């Protein structure tokens, strides 16, 4: 049971290296909350500050309405799982999982019982006498999780826990983590650079970039309504296509004119009350409609490459010196350099102002 609040949290390393800039987050009790961002954006620093391993330069970290800024890690009652797993190489699995209990001087019988129970939850009861080096990556991962959950802490902090696993195991453990969260019903704060992990696991996601929270919302909202260009670029794979454009108003109609002089009709005056002129026009690959036959009003380009994935095929298109990716049917087939025609799903278009990259909201026809 724990609600975690970060209030105007700032972290400065050294004299003037601002790594975390006025971060505000409210993480609800029992929530699976993810902080996602590219490497070096400060996400691990935030986690370390919540754990108490780093001090905050200013601002407050609040657990259940109590400020914990001055509490050492031991007294915050959090558990942390590290990317490296941080298992003690000289201790076996049992001793590793029992470590936090032994520090707290739990009676031996209870230690034994709790470790056994935890191990069976994670399916590692047969490995208790092994040393970490005798375990596979996935098993080590489970031991690290076991050491965290055995204590029944108020909050779990997970720092890129799946990043050291191979791709297949990572996807598998993702589901395990989600199920584990359901079972133990405890607040989890998860840090990753992998947007897919963030999207699949979380109740809510905060996108962190250069020490600032760019957006904090549910995965669906973040995907469908990215607050700015940074978020739009980061969330979704393959990423969104962007083109520079200019908003042109003629009579009652508003369109975006691209650098190659092609333009895309957006809607009538009433729907589009935008003051900005210079914009970034964003569209996800799945919102590009393509055809090999010429169609009235569609753009024309040239196929650069075709990437069949099995469940879908991505088509790279060259268009007026720019490149865009479109998602096509799995059966789609075409030779490079052949002409291709495409348009965009109007309701799925994102506009960002060119100066600050902020989302421009509009209702299209």
């Amino acid at each position, binding site marked *: 049971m724990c609600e975690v609040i970060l209030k105007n949290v700032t972290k400065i390393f050294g004299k003037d290296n601002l790594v975390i800039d006025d971060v505000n987050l409210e993480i609800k009790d029992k929530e699976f909350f993810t902080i996602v961002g590219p490497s070096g954006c400060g996400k691990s620093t935030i986690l370390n500050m919540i754990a108490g391993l780093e001090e905050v330069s200013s601002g407050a970290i609040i657990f259940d309405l109590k400020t914990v800024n001055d509490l050492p*890690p031991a007294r915050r009652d959090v558990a942390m799982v590290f990317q490296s797993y941080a298992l003690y190489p000289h201790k076996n699995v049992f001793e590793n999982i029992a470590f936090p209990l032994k520090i707290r001087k739990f009676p031996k019988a209870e230690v034994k019982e709790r470790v056994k129970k935890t191990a069976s939850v994670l399916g590692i009861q047969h490995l208790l006498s092994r040393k970490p080096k005798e375990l596979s990556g996935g098993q080590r991962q489970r031991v690290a999780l076991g050491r965290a959950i055995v204590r029944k802490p108020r909050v779990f902090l997970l720092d890129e826990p799946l990043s050291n696993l191979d791709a297949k195991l990572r996807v598998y453990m993702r589901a395990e983590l989600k199920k584990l969260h359901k079972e133990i019903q405890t607040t989890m704060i998860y840090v990753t650079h992998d947007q897919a992990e963030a999207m699949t696991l979380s109740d809510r996601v905060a996108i962190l970039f250069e020490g600032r929270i760019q957006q904090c919302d549910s995965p669906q909202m973040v995907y469908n309504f990215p607050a700015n260009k940074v978020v739009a670029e980061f969330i979704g794979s393959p990423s969104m296509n962007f083109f520079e454009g200019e908003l042109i108003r003629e009579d009652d109609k508003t369109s975006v004119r691209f650098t190659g002089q092609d333009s895309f009709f957006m809607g009538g005056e009433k729907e589009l009350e935008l003051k900005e002129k210079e914009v970034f026009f964003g569209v996800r690959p799945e919102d590009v409609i393509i055809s090999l036959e010429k169609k009235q009003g569609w753009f024309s380009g040239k196929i650069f490459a075709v990437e069949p994935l099995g469940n879908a095929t991505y088509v790279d298109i060259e268009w007026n010196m720019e490149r865009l990716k479109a998602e096509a049917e799995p059966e789609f087939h075409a030779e490079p350099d052949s002409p291709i025609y495409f348009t965009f799903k109007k309701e799925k278009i994102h506009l960002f102002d060119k100066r600050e990259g902020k989302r421009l909201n509009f209702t299209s026809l």
Partner: protein
Amino acid sequence: MTKLFDHAKAPYLLILPSILVITAVAFYPILKAAYLSLFEINLKFNVNNFIGIANYFQLLQDNSFFNALLNTLYFVGVSLFFELILGLLIALVINQPLKGKGLVKAVILIPWAIPTVVSAKMWKWIFNYDYGILNYLLKFLHLISDNWNWLGSKTFAMNSAILAEIWKTTPFMVLLLFAGLQVIPEDLYKSAKVDGAGVWYRFWHITLPLLKPTLLVAVLFRALDAFRVFDVIFVLTGGGPADTTEVLSLYTYKQLFSLSNFGYGSALAVVTFVCVMVFSSLFIKLFGLSLETR
């Protein structure tokens, strides 16, 4: 063309140079010493008789030998004990993120960089009865009222030599242990902190067990080095007063080169060699110097 590189023989051919060098500088001298130890040789009186293992029987009845052996063991034990504790303390300190750490590291290494003979000469002055700074400082601090004869007294001579040795070789210990500390992953400490482990708990349950392989290597290195101690004692006391600082190497040296007693001296050298061999193999067997805990 005949095959110069036969694949079966090639590996032997490739290690041949090393074998030749080791034979010339290690095996030959050892075997030669063992051979010489079977003779009674005295250059002054032109004696050169094969006497079998008589030298070794003589050695067993030689009080000077046992005195030297005990002195050596005392020297090894005491110097190693303090080097280990001091070395570990300093290594732990410089492993912390402190300002000016680089400078401290460089300064700490200075004693190690000075040749032993030079530093021993320096210590000889420090310990000097009339002009030594040690007596001066102790008197200045009112810890002693009269000058003490550090190198001339049976009680202090050996301990003074040990002090000089500790000063010189602790940096080596620091360096080894510091290297050992640096390979312990930071995440282990972070994790232990979050799990509630205090400083002591982290030291006993993480640092010490993970430093064990390094500690064992360091102890072995230093023990073997100290067992063969020569220069610091030779310069400081020359074995005196009354043989209280006579160590094995010094006694062997005296037999060999002062008394030209090559047979008996060689027997002493062989015994020293065997001691070192036995000690290191026992040590490695007992503690298993594998890096298993890594």
